[in-house]
């Protein structure tokens, strides 16, 4: 009798698991399908933007080669370097801004704290590009819209407002016990020392997350790069380059290169993630004793 019951429980669990797994598999396919297709297209031998078959008829590495050798019309290596430089600066500066803001809002108590958080929340609801024309004119007024200052302008645009995205790391900081801070204060630490010596070492996962999202911003943004770079092709970022490849004049010969470029963009982000991944695992285990 007992045995039978366990058997029916087992089958029931088996059925439930099967259903769940089938659903997950379907979702995974839906998610991964476009990515898979882009990767396939990047190795496609036939030219053109339209194909009648899902799998390419011939495979080649020429699309990647062309991206880095055919630089006369669309200088992809230069765009890639531009974006990489901007992204590195953004990763450092934005991360500092975000973590500092989060720490203040999590640990310090001041009158404007609640109103500030509300205002930040409301401001965050508006799309950033709403202000693009104003941003351009401000940058022009302070002389950042010409020549090599364009890179500075882009770093500025991507980092300056990043503090507003404090919510996630503030939430993380809130979970770190206050008793740790207090212990440090008793030992004579300043607030900044508590931030750098106590809070930050305990919040590696959120630092990784912040660095990654900050690093990604310049790779993904198109609107601000377009508005600020305008006709200065030397300072284009990859997203402008990829967009150009899809224009009427280029799409036929550049479409497969476009896919290759899209694949390449993911590489720096992936490298950064792999490098920082082990920080994710380290939790706060054993932080507070007793």
């Amino acid at each position, binding site marked *: 009798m007992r045995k039978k019951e366990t058997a029916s429980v087992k089958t029931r669990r088996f059925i439930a698991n099967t259903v769940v797994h089938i659903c997950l598999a379907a979702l995974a396919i839906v998610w991964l399908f476009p990515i898979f297709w882009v990767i396939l297209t990047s190795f496609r031998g*036939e*030219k*053109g*933007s*339209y*194909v*009648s078959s899902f799998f390419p008829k011939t495979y080649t590495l020429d699309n990647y080669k062309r991206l880095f050798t055919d630089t*006369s*019309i*669309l200088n992809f290596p230069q765009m890639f370097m531009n974006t990489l430089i901007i992204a590195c600066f953004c990763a450092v500066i934005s991360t500092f801004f975000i973590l500092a803001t989060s720490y203040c809002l999590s640990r310090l108590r001041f009158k404007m704290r609640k109103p500030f958080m509300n205002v930040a929340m409301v401001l965050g609801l508006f799309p950033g590009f709403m202000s693009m*024309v104003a941003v*351009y*004119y401000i940058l*022009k*007024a*302070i002389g950042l*819209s*010409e020549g090599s200052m364009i890179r500075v302008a882009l770093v500025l645009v991507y980092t300056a407002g990043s503090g507003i995205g404090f919510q996630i790391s503030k939430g993380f900081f809130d979970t770190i016990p206050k008793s740790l801070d207090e212990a440090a204060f008793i030992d004579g630490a300043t607030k900044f020392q508590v931030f750098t010596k106590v809070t930050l070492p305990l919040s590696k996962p959120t630092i990784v997350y912040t660095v990654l999202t900050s690093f990604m911003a310049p790779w993904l943004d198109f609107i601000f790069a377009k*508005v600020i770079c*305008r*006709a*200065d*092709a030397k300072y284009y970022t990859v997203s402008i380059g990829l967009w150009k490849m899809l*224009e*009427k*004049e280029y*799409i*036929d*010969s550049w*479409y497969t290169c476009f896919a290759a470029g899209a694949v390449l963009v993911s590489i720096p982000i992936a490298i950064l993630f792999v490098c920082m991944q082990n920080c994710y695992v380290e939790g706060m285990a054993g932080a507070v004793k007793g």
Partner: protein
Amino acid sequence: MKKKKVLSLLLATAMAASCLTACGGSDAETTEPETTTEEGTAEEGAETTEEGAETTEEGAATEEEAITATIKVWSPSEDQSEENGNWLATMCEQFKTEHPNWDLTFEYGVCAESDAKTQVGQDATAAADVYMYANDQLTDLIAANGIAQLGGETETYVKETNSQAIVDSVSVDGAVYGVPFTTNTWFMYYDKSAFTEDEVKSLDAMIAKDKVSFPLNNSWYIASFYVANGCTLFGDGTDNEAGIDFGGDKGAAVTKYLADMVANPNFVNDKDGSGLAGLRDGSIKAMFSGSWDYAAAKEALGENLGIAVLPSITIDGEAKQMKSFAGSKAIGVNPNSQNPQVAVALAKYLGSAEAQQKHYELRNIVPCNTELLQTEAVQADALVVAQNATFDTTSILQPFVANMSNYWTPAENFGNSLLNKEVTADNAADMTEQFNTSLNTSVAE
């Protein structure tokens, strides 16, 4: 205690504010004279352009005044690539040697003709002195104060070296805005082994015989059918108040024709480059596109590539000539330029027969200078002949009046409805009326 804190806070903010305004003040001071001079030249722009033209006229005989200037020039990136012979820099350097008294430095930027509206419109005062634009953007460029009217000798030059239709394409209310250097339209590429030269004169004969691809849900193309049957856009193309007239019996007849065409298995819609891909693998024998696809079509068909003007369609037993939208690409001068005299002269030079010749040799850009078109080398080029024949005989000037902006989206949607068979031969009359109403409804209102 609290009051003190508030006071100190106020003082601190006051200090910060004064600091900021101080910086702002000095900034404003430095930028102000700049802007005033810019405005000054902008106003003078029109006058000086005429003056400039006059001086260049005299310049041929007498000495030019010495000018030191940095001229910003924007062009598509192909014009600046070494592989394609770096047309822009070559021409600009040549321009420099022709004007020994001018000490010029050129700054090159990238801006495709089709982007001029956005790039120049974003900030005309910081845009290039000389740039290239597609003529359908003229209204927007004028509205953004981004383009100067040409006068004097340059205007005469434009009028003398181009056909009337091309001059019209860069004129608004009789004023010429830019030096045209090429035409822009679409025509037919076909496989010579599939169709004879007689058959390509009629779309019906072609579809009856083999697969034909047409971008029906692209607004730039679909109008050709309606125009064929006597429908008009803005009267003669310039009368904003006249509106678009695609309705009535003549419009319904075209819709019926299109519904029948979509039902024909030999018709294939051209979308996302499927026409070109079909030409490549042989599943499609004719497609409609412009000079930008020439290289790809040539590669696909080789010797068999035929280029022809648009065919005619048979409506109610009568052959009606399809007519494409045509435009031109021209070189414009920024009215905010510090050196309008140099800018106008450069624009004229970049649009001259010599520069067009070079453009054609380096990049296959179809010239539009009437004298250049008569030369043998140009006459022997099938692409040039077809594009110009299309421009001259089977096209209408694409209207660029303000209300034309209402045309694009409804036309595209109507093409889609035709393709998914919401519009059929039975409801053609009703649907055409609805279509016509939407064409004349402003999106902004």
